[in-house]
């Protein structure tokens, strides 16, 4: 099997960015130094929509390797396969081909063990809207085998850090703004101390201030918890700020992968473009972000 990566860009190793104390949180015994936090090998996923139509190739032969403590960004136009890749790693979709390992555990064969190590925040905060954040978080705590009272105390601390007062936690989620809901969703994910955190467009649709708060928080989590994070985003500044490495998906293929600085340097050197992530995005996806937003509106269903 061939990958579509340029050989020189292939697997640029970025040293794990943080090795600070983990605040006594549990770390998987399997997190041996030589095991990547996430290993995706030659993964392919097709969808058949409608009875006689050709299958959609959502992910084509993608391989990734993430070291512990790294924030890895996935950029790509709408429909390029970002969410599908996240769902494949979450076990919400089965692989057509290839394999996924989390800290050396095989997703297909050790599903429950892998599920204990990961959590995901999607673009729409998935809550029971009539229940309060406290009740939603208690449900999450019990599902993940945590003591609900200890979890509640921790949730209060996490949310305070995100600017949400304790008294807000008793009212139905539906009364909160989307920004607040997204923060509660992130707090819920952190509650389970995931060693691999999957963030699928966590800041899309947030107001600029909430966006900055969420970004600062993601940085803090990486620094203090040694969590490995996969982040998909449409916000290039966000990717630049947070990600140690960036992979670009186009039509389900990983077409580029490197540190933001290297990607920028590369388009400047090879194409004479300004050294920005906008140029990088244009170069590898063949369109600008504005084009992408227009197609999204046309597709809008």
């Amino acid at each position, binding site marked *: 099997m061939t990958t579509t990566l340029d050989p020189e860009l292939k697997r640029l190793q970025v040293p794990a960015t943080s090795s600070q104390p983990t605040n006594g949180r549990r770390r998987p015994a399997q997190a041996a130094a030589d095991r990547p936090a996430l290993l995706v090998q030659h993964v392919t996923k097709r969808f058949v929509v409608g009875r006689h139509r050709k299958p959609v190739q959502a992910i084509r032969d993608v391989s990734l390797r993430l070291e512990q403590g790294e924030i890895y960004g996935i950029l790509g136009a709408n429909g390029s396969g970002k969410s599908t890749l996240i769902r494949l790693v979450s076990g919400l979709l089965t692989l057509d081909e290839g394999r996924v390992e989390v800290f050396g555990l095989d997703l297909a064969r050790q599903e429950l063990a892998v599920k204990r190590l990961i959590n995901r925040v999607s673009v729409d905060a998935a809550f029971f809207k009539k*229940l309060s954040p406290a009740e939603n978080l208690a449900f999450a705590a019990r599902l993940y*085998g945590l003591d609900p009272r200890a979890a509640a105390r921790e949730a209060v601390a996490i949310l305070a850090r995100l600017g949400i007062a304790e008294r807000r936690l008793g009212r139905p989620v539906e009364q909160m703004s989307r920004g607040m809901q997204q923060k509660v969703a992130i707090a819920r994910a952190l509650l389970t101390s995931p060693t691999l955190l999957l963030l699928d467009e966590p800041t899309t649709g947030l107001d600029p201030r909430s966006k900055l708060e969420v970004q600062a928080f993601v940085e803090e989590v990486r620094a203090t918890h040694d969590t490995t994070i996969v982040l998909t985003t449409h916000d290039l500044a966000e990717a630049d700020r947070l990600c140690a490495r960036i992979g670009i998906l186009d039509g389900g293929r990983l077409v580029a992968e490197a540190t933001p600085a290297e990607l920028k340097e590369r388009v400047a050197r090879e194409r004479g473009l300004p050294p920005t992530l906008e140029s990088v995005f244009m170069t590898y996806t063949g369109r600008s972000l504005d084009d992408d937003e227009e197609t999204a509106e046309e597709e809008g269903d």
Partner: protein
Amino acid sequence: MTAAVREMRASYAFVERNFNLTKRYFGWELAFLVYNVAGALAISLIGKQFGNNRLLLSLMIGAVFWNYLSIIFSFIAETIAWERWEGTLEYTMMAPVRRATQLLGSTLYAVLYGLVHTTVVLAVLVLFFGLDMSRANLATGAVFMVVGSLSFIGIGMMAAILPLMYVERGAQMTFVLQSLLLLVSGVYYSVDILPGWMQVLSHISPATYVLDGVRRGLVDGLPVTSLFGDIWPLLVMAVVLIPLGVWAFGRAERYAKRTGKLKRVG
């Protein structure tokens, strides 16, 4: 913590969550209670019109206990459709719990909810008609409710597959199944009046045995020990249907994850 304890605790997550939802939707719960009392009353009044106390009691039992079985069935059958509507389906499916644990939790709550709801409806009807229940064997009624729920849990799990596999119309398909069970199970009439082929179906519906057992207990005052003929088919069905339900649900989950039916957007 052993695996079994962890799974038990995780299944309590679903009980607690559903209880919280009932509290939040309390106004709606009251409305649902009124709806069920009114429905059961309307049917029982047919017996009153004919001045036939036995008919009244028989119709009342049909209405109230069919109601109970429907609650169990629909609670379980709709868990998937409901979570999809709330948008939490993927979150719940990602959690490190076995599917049997999740189904057990939803089921436990459905049974508790159904028992409370049905007791209230029954009490209101008994008071309304001023019925003398001194001859009734309440223990028999209770045993049939509990044993009967087991097979309905199995059927409910299999029905829950439909919304998993058919994103748009799956929930409606469970209603069809429910109304077919109503038709063949002798809820308001004796199954003897059905055409032969329907009578065959009535034998494989657990509701037939539940209603027969409850009527003999509450109307004729018979103890459970003399109703073994209604109990053993229910036990057999429970032993077959529950594992079958868990298995089929697992298959449907794999299908949904292969074809992308859990969720598409986002």
